[in-house]
């Protein structure tokens, strides 16, 4: 594995310097690429950079947008990362989000004139439980039948989309909404309170995300359960020897991931959307996987990775207007960002050394 006289060797411990340097290098690489790409598209790179990185932070409205965009990403990513660390690959958070949203929406749809203060807590609990249950299907099939959770969660996402559509064209349709596939608007009691000023959409979901992030941080760094989860997933033989069950790792990973995704679903319908509609998420479930990896599967890293991704999303929307870039350009930018990150993350776990000239040493390694 040597290249031009250099070789990469696994590090004994991940390098803290590299851990910080990698995201920075990634961002710089992406920005350089972005300037080149958007210039080629005929947009003014100065305006693009301003739209992407300055304007989203320049008003309370835009800041609020970054926060509500970051919330679902961070929330889901925190849940998924716990599973990913245990090598349980839940890639169906999108479906768990949808099912969480559907079940939580039953309260405001069927009690649409209620002003009960219990509605919101009820929605939060139902949403998290429903997301959990949907992911639980995959956990059951994996734990009992060894069915790949990657495929099952993926398929369950497609099914969830159809369930949503079926319900919106029938039982949950707004009766006075001219047959359009959407529910009634939720009453105020079913909406997250907002903060930050008139028209700013930052809401309770941001606080929930913060709490979950801190919770995950404590869980990961302090708890025995997290250790058990790691061992159960990473090396099942060792785990069994130590009396830990891989089965429990699967259940715990998927249930936590599902609950977080369900919660994110509640955040969307009780937040910026305010009703149940065919499109609930622009792919948060998938983007969160990326956020989890961008954040190095660490709660604090995920928090910042989620904020950065949100910045790119919001900045992209602004650039559509101010720089006239096509809607697909920010998607390409996100793709590049991830590719660069995954490539440079290599250096967190590996160090590059000059290959020793003597051939004998290679055999010994």
């Amino acid at each position, binding site marked *: 594995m040597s290249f031009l006289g250099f070789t990469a060797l696994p590090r004994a411990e991940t390098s803290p310097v590299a851990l910080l340097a990698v995201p920075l290098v990634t961002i710089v690489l992406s920005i350089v690429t972005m300037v080149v790409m958007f210039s080629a598209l005929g947009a003014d790179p100065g305006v693009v950079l301003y739209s992407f990185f300055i304007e989203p932070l320049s008003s309370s409205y835009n800041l609020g947008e970054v926060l509500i965009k970051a919330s679902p990403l961070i929330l889901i990513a925190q849940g998924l990362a716990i599973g990913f660390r245990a090598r349980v690959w839940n890639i169906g958070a999108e479906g768990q989000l949808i099912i969480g949203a559907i079940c939580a929406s039953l309260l405001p749809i069927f009690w649409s004139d209620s002003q009960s203060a219990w509605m919101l807590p009820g929605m939060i609990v139902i949403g998290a439980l429903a997301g959990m249950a949907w992911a639980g299907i995959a956990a059951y099939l994996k734990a009992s*039948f060894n069915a790949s959770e*990657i*495929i099952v969660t993926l398929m369950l996402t497609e099914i969830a989309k159809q369930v949503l559509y*079926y319900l919106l064209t029938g039982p949950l349709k707004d009766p006075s909404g001219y047959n359009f596939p959407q529910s009634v608007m939720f009453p105020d009691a079913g909406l997250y309170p907002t903060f930050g000023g008139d028209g700013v959409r930052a809401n309770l979901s941001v606080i929930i995300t913060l709490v979950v992030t801190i919770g995950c941080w404590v869980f990961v760094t302090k708890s025995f359960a997290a250790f058990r989860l790691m061992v159960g997933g990473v090396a099942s033989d060792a785990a069994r020897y130590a009396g830990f069950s891989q089965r429990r790792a699967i259940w715990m990973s998927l249930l936590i991931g599902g609950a977080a995704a369900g919660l994110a679903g509640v955040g969307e319908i009780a937040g910026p959307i305010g009703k149940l509609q065919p499109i609930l998420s622009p792919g948060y479930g998938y983007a969160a996987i*990326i956020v989890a990896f961008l954040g190095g599967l660490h709660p604090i890293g995920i928090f910042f990775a989620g904020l950065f991704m949100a910045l790119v999303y919001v900045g992209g929307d602004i650039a559509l207007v101010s720089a006239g870039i096509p809607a697909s350009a920010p*998607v390409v930018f996100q*793709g*590049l960002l991830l590719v660069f*990150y995954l490539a440079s993350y290599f250096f967190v776990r590996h160090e590059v050394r000059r290959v020793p000239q003597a051939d004998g040493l290679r055999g010994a390694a």
Partner: protein
Amino acid sequence: MMDALIFVLAGAFATATPLLFAALGELVVEKSGVLNLSVEGMMALSAAIAFMVTLQSGSHLVGFIAGAASGALLSAVFAVLVLGFMANQVAAGLAVGILGLGLSSLLGRSFEGATLLGIDKIAIPLLSEIPVLGKILFTQDIVVYVGIAATGLVAWFLYRTKAGLTLRVIGENPNTAHALGMRPVGVRFLAILFGGVMAGFAGAYASTVLTPLWSQDMIAGRGWIAVALVVFGTWRPGRVAVGAYLFGAVSLLGLALQAMGIGIPAQFMTCLPYVLTIVVLVAISADKVRVRLNAPAALGESYRAAS
């Protein structure tokens, strides 16, 4: 009534062909122990490129080559990530997939809604004269026949050649394979490129023959269905092909029944293949022996060459 039946059974071949190509490619990739989740993105990009090139050159052949090349290029990015930089396969697949989807709408946006002429169906002499069967089996376009041939070739390669054996051993246990003098990284790289080429053909067929027009998001989840089909077919090329044709027939059957006035909730028909995939997956996974026979044991795990 008979015509409606012929429509379903004959049309199923064309509907299945992009799924078949993409799934056969992914099958070979997975047999080498790599899970590439970027199929949807590769198909989308190559659909756009193949369409543009066919429109400009007037030649479907050139379009297919361009589609295959763009699929291969994108898969090479994935290969470098997972083999060179040892990135997690799930994350790398999703990342490259997003890149492909973004690039396809970026590059294709000036061709939105443009159409092409498809390619003619070939009526095989004599055989196509057979009542009913002739129209179903022997009046198809050339790519459909190539797809059937490709199924046989992939099966032959995997189970009858030394190279195929090498690929399967690497998919089972790359460390053992390396100890036996095989080159897991090189073989996996080639397998991933093959997957890219096949996804490229799939995308090219979708945009230049099946529809034949270009529109953003036209792949509409077919890449994910291809990934599911590999599992549905328990990693056996023949069964993957049968699965693809079944899927094609079921989706057309829904359209035919509707036209007869028989109402089935459209969402139910759309869900069916996904539910079936889960059922099949559970059935085969529970049976340890069959899983061991077909599913590559090292699927999804990074391999680090001992240097």
